């Protein structure tokens, strides 16, 4: 069984936020909720560097959100994708406070999924009604991945089977694939580059890796 994961090359990311825009459109979510690009920088001379840090759900191997969820709405698939069963979620918000990546969010009924502006409460016919008042997050474009696999496509290699953010990345900084497959693109990138993961010390075993080669100011260590 595959373990889907992502490798993000921080040297390539230019902060265009195309990934966040396509995420909003594909998943019908307000801006910067499921996916965001943090604009970070180093201020002191001589480093003076700017760094863009794309973030979403890390699809952890040991997800703190799953552990605390009282309704078992949050679950982890055998392929490593952490998803939410909206029918079970009560919107208690506990998983948001357990996730150290700030990857989860609750949409309240006044939010317009596409623009984020406040609108009237949606009617029952609204296609997003099942996602209102419950916790939501990135699911690696699970419907695309599953549909692609059903067609015999390879996620990470075939655009139709890959997350929308990956195929829309203008700098080709985002890579998707099977972490357990030694010959996959992501495994090769991890093997050939110095990588790090976020909040490593918390022991969550995230499936998203960051290439940090050539960034001594990060003082990163190999994962």
């Amino acid at each position, binding site marked *: 069984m595959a373990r889907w994961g992502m490798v993000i090359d921080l040297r390539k990311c230019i902060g265009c936020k195309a990934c966040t825009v396509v995420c909003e459109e594909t998943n019908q979510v307000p801006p910067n909720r499921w996916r965001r690009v*943090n*604009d970070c920088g180093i201020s002191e001379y001589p480093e003076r560097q700017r760094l863009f840090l794309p973030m979403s759900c890390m699809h952890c191997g040991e997800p703190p959100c799953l552990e605390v969820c009282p309704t078992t709405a949050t679950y982890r698939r055998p392929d490593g994708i952490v998803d939410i069963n909206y029918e079970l979620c*009560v919107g208690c918000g506990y998983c948001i406070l357990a996730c150290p990546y700030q990857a989860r969010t*609750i949409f309240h009924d006044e939010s317009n999924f596409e623009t984020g502006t406040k609108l009237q409460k949606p009617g029952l016919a609204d296609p997003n009604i099942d996602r209102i008042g419950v916790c939501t997050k990135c699911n690696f474009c699970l419907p695309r991945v599953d549909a692609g696999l059903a067609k015999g496509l390879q996620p990470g290699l075939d655009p139709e089977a890959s997350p929308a953010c990956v195929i829309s990345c203008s700098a080709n900084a985002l890579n998707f694939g099977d972490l357990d497959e030694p010959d996959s693109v992501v495994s090769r990138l991890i093997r050939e580059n110095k990588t790090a993961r976020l909040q490593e010390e918390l022991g969550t075993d995230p499936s998203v890796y960051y290439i940090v080669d050539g960034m001594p100011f990060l003082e990163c*260590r190999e994962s």
Partner: protein
Amino acid sequence: MQLVQTGKQKVWGWPAVANFTLGGAATGFYLLGSVIVSLQDSALAGSPPFAFKLLAPLLIALGFLALTIEAGRPLRGHHLFRHISGSWISLECLAGAIFVPAAVIDWLFPHPVVWILAAVAAMALMISQGFIVYRARAVSAWNVPLMPLLFVTSGFSKGSGLVLLSVVLDDSAVGHPCAMIGLICVLLNLSVWFLYLSWSREATFREAIEALRRPNALIFTVGLGHLLPGILLLVILVAPGIGIDTGTGLWHTVVALAGVTMVAGGMSQKAGIILGAGYLRGIVLERSKGDARAANPAFPKVLC
């Protein structure tokens, strides 16, 4: 290296504070009330405060009701029992679901088995609330192993405050032992509170609890919640020696004031933890522990 700085959590607000305050106070009230009742025939003379048998489940129910304001889909509450083995919220709900009817049944038809069931559920609820906060790993000031103990001592402190209030309302003659129990609870909670405030030297923790260490916060949490009731409880204990007779208006006033300040102080403590110290962890891209900038003063500053 911390790349994204901390921000305050906005998920749990006053309803959560109300739940944690009422849950701790009510379970402490029930357990201490039970202890006093069980000692009635031996150590204590006079009528014990019976109000706890009905008031405690009522307060617990109010606490859960407050959470329905905050939850996105409160009508799906029955799903909350699906993860008893892993989630402390599930365990809290189960404990509450057992405690409320058991306490009410024990009030209507007192029976030792029902009372034990209610007492065990009350203890489980009190402990689970501390673990709920502790397991919130995104919040550095909550993810502290001391949190369950802090919640337990806080619950007993507030509970003993309610016991004192019920002494006044019931006009019970057990003020002296109740004051002694209250003083022990207040001192225990004060000790754990100071231990919590100095728990870690980690930069993220220190920044998160900075608001709790400010003088204006300490006035409420320590001054109102511990020092003032501590002094009042001492006055109650030595009342006959300083000319305040038990059962007089002044004695009742002192007892009531001690009870009110203990409950109010406990509430300010919970509000401080949930609202004041509820900062999310910064995003760190490294495996080393602690703040690299603190370890190396020459380390570059991050702008996000």
